[in-house]
């Protein structure tokens, strides 16, 4: 699928972010191998891959922390190692990156100084991320989830063109994670967001594009809607037991049926209802993104 959808890094339209034949890694340990893609429209690009696939290395290379051993990373055509390019992106690592010895407010002041944001911006994100209540608490006394929220808050101190968010919702409770996703979706209407996650359901919910890595190579770059599971398995729950599901495989409360295409789902529902089944829920049981991990 990749060659068809991978837009040319040389002949495509003016790009926001271009990775052209990027190889990168650590001393004596190459991780990424000739990664090429072009990101040219605001959206959430979910970066997926098994552990060790190179997601964090890709983020670090785009952020200019790691220098590519081959190829180049360009922002609006300008190499990433220029300060003007770095000023266009926000980078949130998978670590909290919270400095010791400071309170929440002082930490955000610290970040605001780096970002050249104003004290008013600090107040705004304290309010926006609902972390004002512990603004005077030392970072070391926060829970990991609270630290993550403060860490994410700094991303919203100042607007930039590209956001690199490495597992931003890890360690967050579902409510806060959903709020963060809402903020990021809002952000992605006008900005490019590269977003890595191990939560495939979250990835499907938030991503418009998928960038999948496998063993340091680009395995897939495509729109989320084009990612299809090799097997489409539908699960059905009914309000009461019914003979309409006789012969179906059972998994917990669900009865399973494998289909060839999503187009078959409406017909399947009509068929079950015509046999008297009172449906409570119909859902896709397999996440097509799981195939990217095999």
């Amino acid at each position, binding site marked *: 699928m990749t060659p068809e959808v991978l837009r040319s890094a040389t002949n495509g339209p003016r790009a926001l972010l271009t990775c052209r034949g990027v190889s990168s890694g650590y001393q004596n340990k190459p991780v990424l191998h000739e990664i090429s893609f072009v990101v040219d429209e605001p959206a959430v690009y979910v970066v997926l891959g098994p552990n060790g696939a190179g997601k964090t290395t890709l983020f670090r290379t785009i952020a200019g922390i790691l220098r590519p051993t081959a190829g180049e990373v360009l922002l609006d055509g300008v190499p990433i190692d220029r300060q003007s390019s770095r000023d266009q992106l926000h980078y949130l690592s998978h670590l909290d990156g919270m*400095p010791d010895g400071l309170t929440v407010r002082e930490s955000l002041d610290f970040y605001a100084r780096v970002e050249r944001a104003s004290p008013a911006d600090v107040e705004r994100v304290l309010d926006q991320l609902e972390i004002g209540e512990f603004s005077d608490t030392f970072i070391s006394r926060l829970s990991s989830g609270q630290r993550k929220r403060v860490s994410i808050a700094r991303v919203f101190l100042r607007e930039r063109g590209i956001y690199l968010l490495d597992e931003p919702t890890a360690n967050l409770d579902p409510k806060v994670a959903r709020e963060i996703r809402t903020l990021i979706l809002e952000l992605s209407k006008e900005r490019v967001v590269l977003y890595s996650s191990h939560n495939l359901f979250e990835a499907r919910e938030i991503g418009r594009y998928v960038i999948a890595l496998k063993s340091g190579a680009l395995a897939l770059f495509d729109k989320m809607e084009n990612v299809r599971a090799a097997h489409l398995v539908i699960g059905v729950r009914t309000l009461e037991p019914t003979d309409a599901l006789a012969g179906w495989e059972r998994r917990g409360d669900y009865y399973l049926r494998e289909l060839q295409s999503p187009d078959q789902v409406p017909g399947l529902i009509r068929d079950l209802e015509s046999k008297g089944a009172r449906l409570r829920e119909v859902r896709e049981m397999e996440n097509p993104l799981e195939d990217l991990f095999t």
Partner: protein
Amino acid sequence: MAAASELPTLLGITVRRTLVVGRVSVIVGCIMVTFYSAAFGLEGPLFTSIGTLVLPIFAVSGGIGGALVFANDRTKGVLEYLVAYGLSARRILFNVLIAGLVQATIVLGVGTVAGVSSYLLSGYALTPQLPEALLTYTFPMSYLTVCMMTTVGVFWTSLSSPRAGMNSPVGVLPLIGVAPTSAALVLALSLRTYTSQVLLGTELAIAVIVLLLITRTSQLMPTERLLSTA
């Protein structure tokens, strides 16, 4: 577009954070040096001859904070963040170096005030040898020792996998900091001649080591060594 020169140095906030993170070692250092200097000050000439030679050892306890902040920042991903925004490895090194020197100054200042006060209150007249010893040995040796300790600590930390405790580079640093002063002291006391030349030679040797290390920052501490492996 912002130019590279517009990047904040973060020096002030690094110094402040170091004072918070390393406050225990500063407090302990101040208490120890106060007792030590006051006791030696009571002995008058002994403070000038021996006391001033030992004072740099106490500065080490104050100066450890810079390397401590560096190690913490690396483990927690703060350095990764700063590098992403364009702060250079050398700038980061300078910040923790100066922060360590500020802390060492506090301990050293307390020790000097305690020693000189005790010396004068004991009725001894101020001789030119005392300020001379402080200005030519105690202060420069203390600052050079802290610079060496911090630089070695930063490079060693960046080359090591993150770990805490006495087994970590920061845990071993006080021993590295104390070593030059101890060596100079032993050498000066055992030779008993050319003492000032021995002391000056030690200072010069440390200064050369520190300068060599600092000029090799980009080779000894490439950006990727600032990343946490966690």
